[in-house]
């Protein structure tokens, strides 16, 4: 993808664009100037320095703060298939990596080729907090600015925390290992924390007293020390109310900070989350709209003439009371899912965004649902995916909004983001321009 725009000019200026700010305000016919990856000036009357290459937006382009994906496995090495894992002789005492305990892994050390880097930029993301794909303790979370090639994806800050989930050990029936159940994962987690505590104590003692037996150094346990010392948060991917309750229980036992990722049912624990200051990097991978409801909505959009014709032609569809009752409950459950983020926002919980396994091709459909049925406005959405997420990740000093002094990460759309068929033409990530031109 060869850019028309030279990357070698000292500074850049994009003028005559509509800027959609993270707080919901818009500035029309505005200008952004950036240099060395930092925004130098922004506004209607921003002065364009002599050494800035000018690009004219023609008053038709829309600029949004670069969206931040709060928790993603982009660039992560793929996981081996169950059948490829060798059977263990002692499944009850597996090596750490077979249990899914791999907190020592850093995405920055493992990044691989991933075509989704570019794909996600094409929908407005410039920044992502990445972690390596895995199981109960897959690794550490680090923030990156995005680029098409994984070689150019650059570390902004890290580690932001450790990643965790209730996923059981890989291997399935034949090559499985402990822990293979939810309760096993919880017990294993505790034991790893206890073992790390003991090791840390031993290392500390040994440093003061080299004549005592030396500790068995262990990369895995040592990567847990920040969690043991409560100096780093645990980014925990959970959805159900019950799972959230379980991670809160673990939090009570060990005291570290928690960030909930995905959190589809988090609204049910909103008060508790607020009380504990636990933010949610919400997922939007909702269940599809019930088919019958989608049809019903299509009906409503048709004009009367069509409806009459259809009524004559079609058979009377009788729904039993049982099915009607079923549909009511189904719809209520679906609406609860899609209004999750709104409810969290309304109760004062800090809510950001994470893709959490969402397939990119589904992103715009889910966003449409959020706006139509989820009670969110475009402003809410922009704030959610930029400033809010930056706050939660601790990147808000440099990212999350378009202001002087902040990082130059933003997307240039050919029309307002929520309009049909809006496309990202250019993505500016850490000041570097990536051109898509509607491809």
């Amino acid at each position, binding site marked *: 993808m060869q850019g028309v725009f030279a990357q070698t000019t000292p500074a850049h200026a994009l003028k005559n664009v509509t800027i959609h700010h993270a707080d919901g305000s818009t500035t029309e016919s505005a200008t952004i100037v950036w240099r060395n990856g930092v925004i130098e000036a922004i506004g209607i009357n921003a002065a364009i320095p002599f050494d800035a290459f000018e690009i004219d937006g023609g008053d038709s382009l829309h600029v949004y703060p670069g969206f931040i994906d709060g928790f993603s496995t982009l660039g992560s090495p793929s996981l081996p298939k169950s059948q490829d894992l060798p059977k263990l002789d002692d499944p009850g005492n597996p090596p750490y990596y077979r249990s899914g305990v791999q907190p020592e892994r850093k995405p920055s050390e493992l990044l691989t080729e991933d075509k989704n880097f570019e794909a996600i930029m094409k929908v407005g993301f410039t920044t992502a907090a990445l972690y390596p794909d895995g199981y109960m303790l897959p690794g550490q979370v680090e923030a990156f600015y995005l680029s098409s090639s994984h070689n150019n994806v650059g570390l902004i800050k890290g580690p932001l925390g450790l990643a965790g989930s209730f996923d059981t050990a890989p291997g399935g029936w034949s090559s499985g290992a402990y822990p293979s159940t939810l309760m096993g994962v919880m017990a294993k987690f505790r034991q790893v924390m206890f073992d790390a505590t003991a090791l840390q104590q031993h290392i500390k003692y040994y440093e003061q007293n080299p004549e005592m037996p030396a500790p068995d150094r262990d990369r895995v346990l040592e990567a847990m020390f920040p969690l043991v010392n409560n100096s780093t948060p645990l980014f925990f991917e959970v959805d159900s109310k*019950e799972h959230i309750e379980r991670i809160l229980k673990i939090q009570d036992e060990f005291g570290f900070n928690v960030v909930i990722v995905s959190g589809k049912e988090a609204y049910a624990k909103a008060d508790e989350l607020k009380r504990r200051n636990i933010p949610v990097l919400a997922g939007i991978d909702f269940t599809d709209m019930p088919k019958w409801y989608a049809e019903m909505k299509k009906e409503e959009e048709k004009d009367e003439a069509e409806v009459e014709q259809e009524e004559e032609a079609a058979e009377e569809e009788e729904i039993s009371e049982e099915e009607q009752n079923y549909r009511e409950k189904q719809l209520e459950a679906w609406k609860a899912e899609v209004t999750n983020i709104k409810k969290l926002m309304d109760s004062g919980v800090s809510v950001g965004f994470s893709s959490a396994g969402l397939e990119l091709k589904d992103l715009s459909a889910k966003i449409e649902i959020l706006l139509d049925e989820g009670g969110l406005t475009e402003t809410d959405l922009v704030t959610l995916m930029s400033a809010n997420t930056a706050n939660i990740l601790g990147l808000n000093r440099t990212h999350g909004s378009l202001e002087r002094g902040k990082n130059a990460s933003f997307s240039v759309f050919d029309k307002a983001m929520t309009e049909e068929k809006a496309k990202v033409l250019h993505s500016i990530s850490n000041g570097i321009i990536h051109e898509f031109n509607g491809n």
Partner: protein
Amino acid sequence: MTKLITLCLILAFSTTAYAQEKGSVLIQNATVITVTNGDLEETDVLIRDGVIREIGKDLNAPRGVETVDATGKFVMPGIIDAHSHLNGVDINEARNPVTAEVTMEESVDPNEVGIYHALAGGATTIHLMHGSANVIGGQGETLKLRYGVSQEEMKFENAKRTIKFALGENPTRVHGQGNGVQPRTRMGVEQVVRGHFDEALDYKRKREAYLEAKAQYDRRGRGTPPVPVAENLRYEVLNDIIEGEIFVHCHSYRADEILMLMRVFNDYGIENYTFQHANEAFKVANELAKNGAMTSVFSDWWAYKFEVYYSTAYNASILNANGVVNSINSDNDQLLRTLNHEAAKVVRYGDTSVNDAIKMITLHPAIQLGIDDRVGSIEEGKHGDVVVWDGHPLSIYSKAEMTFVDGTKYFDLANDPDDMRIQINPGTDFDDGSNFRKIVDNRDEDACIQDTFILLQDQAQTHAHN
């Protein structure tokens, strides 16, 4: 096209209606089966704030307390099932022969609709157990069937801690045959128990020594610090068992393995344990009684495995006649709903009296779970866990009409909606096959072995329904 639905959602059922409350109710003029004090005719039971306050004739209804006219009906304590897997998220952490550190407390699904079905069958408390894949399995959790509350609120407050052991075919097949890990034989099973107990005692010694030395070193700041001994969850639990803080419930069948465990427990000073299933317990009733061991058995399941081939439906009666505290359990979601009739079978198979049979699904399981001071009979001061039946509970023609837990009505036959789901999956349509549950019927042998694949292979074809 007919408007199929209005967008105003009119939902009949709201979870807040069943919030965990201690309720009050006056049940009037019933035949009250107290279990411990005979059957009292034309008697009232007054429950205030979850506790049975008074049992007597013509009691006054306090202001604001709902009354239930139970003339001609029977009131019995809620049924207690000492062996259930009804609402476990997982049942078996089957990767290691000893997994004392895991607990069903962390495997509770409060949204399982089977909880409501069990209430409809007159059950109010279940012992949610780990499965029988391991010699020493996970800890159990005693739950009250408060349908609609959170997992935490389902817990039977301050119930005794329990843990699952398993002997015989299940652990030897899962670990010995399945993974090549001891035990493969009944000899191995004994040594797994002893070996782990011994390791646990060693751990305790070392851990306590470390903690003491650490405290000293940290205080004084000089000398040589101790090498840290990490806290070990598994050994901590094993020590709790040895110290009597955890009631053991041991899945077992053969008489000789029952004797083996009693021998082992006597060596380690473990006193409170119940043999579960124990199809051959009748052969060693004397020894069980002498050791104060208890049993929790099926009424009539047998012959589905070799270790139950030589068993008898008269098991419960023999045990009862020889002074063993025995209960009848289900280990099965369907039997849980008909435990009253399982108890009735005990009257047929042997010389057990009706009241003794009723004890086996009320007071005796309560004793085995360490909650008999609070439930298991209708006595003043006990919890208001009672069921109103339209006939004698052991008759096949009787139905449970109302089920109260802590004085709160959780089931009412007169107001029993069809769809009692709490957890709705919006992605499933009405006639979607994924709505269809795994049918549990009488023949779902040994539910204890869920989450382990090894036994499924043999059972696959022998009892295909379709």
